[in-house]
């Protein structure tokens, strides 16, 4: 089985950097390619969001195929919100057939956040049993319903965890459950409350989870005061402390302050035991990614044959 670039970098022990690309509300291939060019070479793999915040966008798998064509390693996000188990398993087979290997399992924001609030929320599976189901497809060659796949598939299964959701005391245990379900790597929700993240990581280490699965810590560069406030007030499951808002507010050059803050956070995360890398979500600000990765001292990225 061939490894994805993400797997190779993880296996090498290098500090991993993944990026994120938000597909457009259009079928403009050139837009996806443009963002691909910005991210390719400065990150190890690129997440393609699956109709993030329940807003209709180009399919994550279609975008993933475009990145495969550009020799960039995609991480396809799959939510449980829009598809039942028939569609999800079918899409996983399709993604693998298109050369995609990394698949990230998410529950998905509720449809009432997005631009189709009248949609039916499917949620046939949940993110946990989606992980287990994909593992069974790969390791046992079996579909959820029990029938066998006609040939093996090779996938690298990711999932998310949110240290900023509640009940806080349960969050590290829930991560352990995802490991039990069969996940291969974890990306976290974006971190702004470093103190809380460190408390969560302490519990993760206490349970020994960091030794079983690589954890990529989520970071978002703040582009403006408005963006910081929006994340604080409107994005579910996110905590943006007032100190962060105040720091951006006080800065003369807000974009530069956002970059500085992000670089500081990455450098700090690198020192935390059990953090295997960062997941840089600069959606709608993809052009800043090379500068952040450079200033964080993470260039050049490891290359493999």
């Amino acid at each position: 089985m061939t490894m994805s670039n993400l797997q190779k970098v993880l296996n090498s022990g290098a500090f991993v950097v993944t990026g994120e690309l938000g597909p457009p509300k259009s079928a403009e291939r050139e837009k996806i390619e443009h963002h691909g060019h910005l991210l390719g070479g400065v990150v190890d793999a690129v997440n393609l969001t699956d109709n993030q915040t329940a807003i209709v966008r180009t399919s994550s798998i279609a975008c993933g195929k475009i990145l495969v064509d550009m020799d960039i390693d995609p991480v396809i996000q799959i939510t449980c919100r829009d598809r039942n188990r028939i569609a999800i398993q079918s899409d996983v087979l399709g993604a693998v057939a298109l050369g995609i290997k990394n698949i990230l399992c998410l529950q998905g924001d509720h449809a009432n956040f997005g631009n189709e609030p009248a949609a039916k929320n499917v949620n046939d599976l949940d993110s946990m049993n989606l992980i287990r189901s994909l593992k069974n497809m790969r390791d046992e060659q079996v579909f959820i319903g029990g029938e066998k796949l006609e040939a093996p598939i090779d996938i690298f299964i990711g999932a998310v965890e949110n240290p900023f959701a509640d009940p806080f005391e349960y969050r590290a245990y829930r991560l352990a459950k995802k490991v039990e379900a069969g996940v291969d790597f974890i990306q976290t929700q974006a971190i702004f409350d470093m103190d809380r993240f460190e408390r969560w990581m302490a519990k993760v280490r206490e349970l020994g989870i960091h030794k079983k699965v690589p954890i990529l810590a989520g970071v978002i560069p703040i582009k403006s005061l408005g963006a910081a406030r929006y994340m604080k007030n409107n994005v579910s499951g996110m905590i943006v402390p007032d100190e962060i808002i105040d720091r951006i507010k006080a800065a003369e050059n807000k974009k530069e302050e956002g970059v500085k803050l992000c670089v500081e956070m990455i450098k700090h995360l690198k020192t935390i035991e059990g953090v295997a890398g960062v997941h840089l979500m600069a959606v709608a600000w993809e052009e800043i990614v090379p500068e952040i990765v450079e200033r964080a001292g993470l260039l050049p990225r490891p290359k493999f044959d």
Partner: protein
Amino acid sequence: MIVGERKPLQEIIKAVEPFEKILVLGCGECVTVCMAGGDKEAKETALAISVARKRAGKPVEVKSHTIERQCEFEYLEAGRKLIEDADVIVSLACGVGVQTMNMHYEDMRTLPGINTTFMGMPFQQGVWVENCLGCGNCVLEETMGICPIARCSKSMLNGPCGGSQDGKCEVSKETDCGWHLIVERLMKFDKLSALEEVKPPKDWSTSHSGGPRKMIREDVKL
């Protein structure tokens, strides 16, 4: 109980526009308890239709009546004379009652006067909450008596999701996160380890996903 909410009066008034003799039919069961479709609401609705039609210059005869239980054939005979005397029935029963009426009086039109909202309970005076989806395969024993199917917005079997904050669901700050309640209750009974096992995908075939459901019990059939 089945909880309902009366449709907006304008919607009811518009629906009965073509008719001259209208009967508003309340139900004495769940919808009486949830103050949506009992005798009192039937009288109020009849009066509202009557006033609206008079104002519109098209006065009409509107009566009201309440049947003890609209969801069973045997109770529907009680109002036969009044029912057959009308051009149209506005039923304030739940969707089950409206359909039972249409089946039983198949030559009549029975229109819905309430929106059936959910199976639930009066949580406080004036507040009703949904707590069962009738999925046909109860898991309450595993979740400390709190239903993850009905009370989690995403019907997760392995919650809570990352949108749970301060005990509230990401969908609304007015909605408790069902999984937060489950976790809290498990901790209270020192049973959090019950969540360690990954619950497999749910068999939805026992729910409405399996098609309209029918239950046959040979032991009680006549």
